[in-house]
């Protein structure tokens, strides 16, 4: 035992050295936290007062009131319609825009401006785009559809362009060597390579459009969001709870369906 207890002569080396950069980062985060809480006038009193209100709000939300289910169903169907149409149109347009934006198929004078357009579509939140469309085409489902088409292009076209850029060129050359036209090259050599990923993007985008279609109504672009917002403004919190439960159920149901679809493809 004596030998074990004796201090070894070699320098003790800590296997877990302190990373000063990370510690500094945490310090900066802590300082920022204090600064921002002070500068924005957040205080504990308001928070605790709010918790009391939260109690009251939850009290009024439960039990959820499904008695106006017709209104709920109308909004739900409109949301679904917006999501389906905008996904189809958006994904269809993204096919072409994505192809135009891929740097291995298109010269840079085409792909660069198209990429700029995609970035522009993506940089604004759907709600802002929805507001602009509501102002220009009026209230209703059309504004919602146009908004989500833009949102879909911003997301899908970019991913699709990246998928096309990653394909193997051997098959493209093989098809080209047979003298196939440009369209045949795309259909027979590019599409088979990217199709399964494309289904993945499309189901993801439909999921995202479904979520957003329940929200664009808040600014008047149709769907369940409008019903939700008016219920909020009339303080019908039990109906609000019913709508929220419906939205969550809808999205859970779609998640179940989308795993099924992905398993098929």
């Amino acid at each position, binding site marked *: 035992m004596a030998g074990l207890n004796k201090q070894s002569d070699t320098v003790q080396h800590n296997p877990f050295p302190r990373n000063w950069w990370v510690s500094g980062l945490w310090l900066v985060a802590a300082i920022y936290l204090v600064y921002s809480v002070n500068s924005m006038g957040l205080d504990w009193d308001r928070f605790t007062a709010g918790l009391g209100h939260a109690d009251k709000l939850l009290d009024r939300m439960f039990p959820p009131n499904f008695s106006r289910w017709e209104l709920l169903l109308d909004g739900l169907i409109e949301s679904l319609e917006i999501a389906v149409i905008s996904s189809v149109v958006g994904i269809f347009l993204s096919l072409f825009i994505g192809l135009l934006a891929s740097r291995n198929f298109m010269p840079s004078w085409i792909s660069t401006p198209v990429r700029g357009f995609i970035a522009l579509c993506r940089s604004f939140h759907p*709600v802002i785009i929805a507001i602009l469309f509501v102002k220009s085409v009026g209230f209703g489902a059309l504004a919602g559809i146009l908004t989500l088409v833009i949102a879909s292009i911003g997301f899908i076209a970019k991913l699709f362009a990246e998928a096309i850029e990653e394909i193997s060129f051997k098959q493209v050359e093989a098809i080209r060597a047979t003298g196939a036209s440009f369209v045949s090259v795309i259909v027979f050599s590019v599409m088979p390579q990217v199709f399964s990923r494309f289904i993945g993007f499309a189901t993801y985008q439909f999921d995202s459009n479904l979520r957003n279609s329940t*929200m664009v109504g*808040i600014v008047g672009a149709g769907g369940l969001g409008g019903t939700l917002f008016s219920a909020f403004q009339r303080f019908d919190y039990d109906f609000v709870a019913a709508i929220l439960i419906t939205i969550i159920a809808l999205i859970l149901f779609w998640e179940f369906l989308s795993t099924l679809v992905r398993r098929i493809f």
Partner: protein
Amino acid sequence: MQQIDHHWQRFTLKQKLSRFTVYLCFIVALVLSVRTVEIIPEFFYDAPEQMADMFGRMWPIDFAFYPISVHEAMIETLNIATLGTLVTLIFSIPLALMNASNIVASPWVHWIARFFLVSSRSVNSLVWALLFVAIFGPGVLAGVLAIAFRSVGFVGKLLAEALEEINMGSVEALRATGAPWGAVMLKGYWPQVKPAFFSIVLFRWDINVRESAVLGLVGAGGIGVVLNDSMNLFQWQQVAMSLLAIFAVVVAAEVLVVNIRKRLI
């Protein structure tokens, strides 16, 4: 000569049928939506003219409006996004630990964690903002909490996935030395998920910058309040200034995040 009596088929009958069902359901959904959606055709034909009119009103951009109110609101927006991202860590780290199957083995705990993560993701940030405005009153606090609650699902889910993907070798080695739970977490799991963690948080911060720009539309502080006010007053040139500011900040945030993530990974 022997006759080959079977064709090569890419898909089995079951695969073909299931694919066909998916296509059929998809077409039926599309046709039903297009036929029943309430779109006023006149609005649709009128859209380009109306959009041109709106953009015409936006020009020239009112740059003098920037120092008056846009600057301060923009800083507030960034603070909401950052503070919301920091607050979300308090909730999402425990939920991620509960959801990772190589940390907690109980399926009950998984389901509880997954329930919170899914409900956080299903409710849109604008809807969270509506709820928190009802609880805490209009202002920054509602915005921060809306951002935080919306991000929990995203950060929690991705972090749990990152935790599940780690190499268990070092964790088992630490456990074999009899290290306590905290030490296993800090020295076994944490070093391996650290890059993923920072990249997830940065990614979410980027999304939160976009989202916090619109929270003001329902009264939760930030640039959205300014945008909403100038829109209600039909001050389109001021609207254009706010939009330009949002665009600039969103692009700057994205560039920043992309550069930091490149160094991290």
